[in-house]
């Protein structure tokens, strides 16, 4: 039963007014602009775009400002906003082979064509706090070299050429879309990938780590990791042809995993795939590992009962907005629910006490 209780309006209004003030902080400190957040907190912006599942750096920066830097709250704001947007259509699948790579590395081939391009990475930094940044933000221009003009080939193409890794034949199956149809199980790989790409980074990381620690181990090598911008094309019905409607920055991870073979197929490597909005390296590696673990059935592996193999477990718990919604609702008024439980416990205790008194009286009488 629900009973409406009124009376909180003034307290709520005042709480929100105070929230706005606290968000702004000390007014003697300059206010952050959306452009500052977009340019200088870009990895937070990327995470909000990836998990909010909406590529728009300015909106993500606004959401971060509004949420006081609480990224899950920011993702919530983006998810809520995106539901108000009419869907213009679906893009052509992006061609990551045409990516303008800022970064492109392989842990499997040292001398891969196109080379090991480190890009703007935290790798090899010493993780020591840089106190110079506290003083001023002056930076020297980064060095340049003769730019690569041709496309950078995917490293796994070379293994595919040798037919020593499973093929990913180009199909044009219509993929499911979890923003249109609720997930049902088995979900299939397309919906799994959509779900993993927008899933909580911490959760996907934990799941991926569990596979590395032995819960459905799949021994992944990072065959290739690339970050950069790709053009997005969409067929425009009123024009009758496809045009580029913009470009998005993506991080793609392709893993090379332990092999399998059968009587008919010679031993070959298997693969996992991660693709995430923005520069989101940890997330895309984790996604590839979890994608690979979830493919156990299709690849004829045993169900080891590991969490990372359980599609329903992973997909039902990876969405931080669903999770936080259910988790946090328990702090909201449950006065009536609780009242009924309180009454029940009091009644049980009363009965127990009456029974005890009864017994005592009977014993005394005997």
């Amino acid at each position, binding site marked *: 039963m629900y009973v409406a209780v009124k009376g909180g309006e003034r307290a709520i209004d005042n709480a929100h007014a105070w929230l706005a003030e606290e968000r702004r902080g000390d007014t003697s400190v300059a206010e952050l602009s959306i452009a500052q957040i977009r340019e200088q907190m870009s990895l937070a912006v990327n995470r909000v775009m*990836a998990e909010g599942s909406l590529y728009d750096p300015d909106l993500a920066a606004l959401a971060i400002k509004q949420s006081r830097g609480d990224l899950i709250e920011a993702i919530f704001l983006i998810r809520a906003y*995106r539901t108000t947007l*009419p869907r213009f259509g679906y893009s052509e699948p992006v061609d990551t082979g045409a990516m303008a790579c*800022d970064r492109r590395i392989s842990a499997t081939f040292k001398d891969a064509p196109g080379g090991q391009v480190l*890009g703007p990475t935290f790798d090899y930094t010493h993780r020591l706090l840089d106190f110079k940044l506290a003083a001023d933000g002056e930076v020297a221009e*980064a060095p340049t070299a003769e730019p690569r003009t041709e496309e950078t080939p995917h490293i796994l193409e070379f293994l595919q050429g040798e037919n020593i890794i499973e093929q*990913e034949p180009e199909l044009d199956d219509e993929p499911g879309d979890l923003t249109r149809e609720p997930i049902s199980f088995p979900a299939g790989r397309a919906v799994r990938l959509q779900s993993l790409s927008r899933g909580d980074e911490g959760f996907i990381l934990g799941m991926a780590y569990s596979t590395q620690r032995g819960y459905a181990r799949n021994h992944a090598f990072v065959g290739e990791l690339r970050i950069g911008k790709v053009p997005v094309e969409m067929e425009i019905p009123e024009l009758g042809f496809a*045009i580029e409607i913009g470009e998005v920055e993506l991080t793609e991870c392709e893993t090379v995993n332990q092999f399998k073979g059968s009587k008919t197929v010679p031993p070959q490597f298997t693969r996992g795939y991660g693709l995430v909005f923005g520069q989101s390296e940890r997330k895309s590696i984790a996604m590839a590992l979890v994608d690979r673990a979830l493919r156990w059935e299709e690849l004829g592996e045993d169900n080891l009962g590991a969490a990372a193999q359980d599609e329903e477990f992973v997909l039902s718990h990876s969405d931080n907005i669903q999770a936080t919604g259910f988790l946090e609702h328990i702090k909201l008024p449950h006065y009536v629910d609780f009242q009924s439980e309180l009454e029940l416990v009091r009644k049980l205790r009363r009965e127990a006490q009456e029974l005890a008194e009864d017994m005592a009286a009977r014993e005394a009488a005997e």
Partner: protein
Amino acid sequence: MKTENATNEPALGARKAWMGLLARSEETRLAGLWAAFDRDPAFEWLRAPQFGGVMVRGRMGSTGAPFNLGEMTVTRCALALQDGTVGHGYVQGRSTQKAEIAAKIDALMQTPVASALKEAVLRPLEAEQKSLKEHRAAKAAATKVEFFTMVRGED
């Protein structure tokens, strides 16, 4: 599907190229170049600017079956010049101004002012986007690892 049939119908490839260029362009720069061109045509809306989302797709393992990755914001509009030439704007982000300018340019590019407009707006935009892209590629190239082998011990 209906297609446009303007008298000065440009080659499909060229139209795709300028629409893509306009979609990717930075709003302030586009607005600046457009204002400098200073030939704002009279027009009627066929579809007033509208924000929306496009679901971006990827392929499993980069080459396999498609899947839905996530959405991006897009603004679209359509207009007709007084001579009936239709222009479409489909641009990245949320900006009615950017979509409107893109649609006007798309329409005017199908009229006799096309070559002047191309020189004034499209060429500079194209050159700047190309130069930005090359500059990033040059910085990436400087981070390419040049392996060398250390020979140790005898033989």
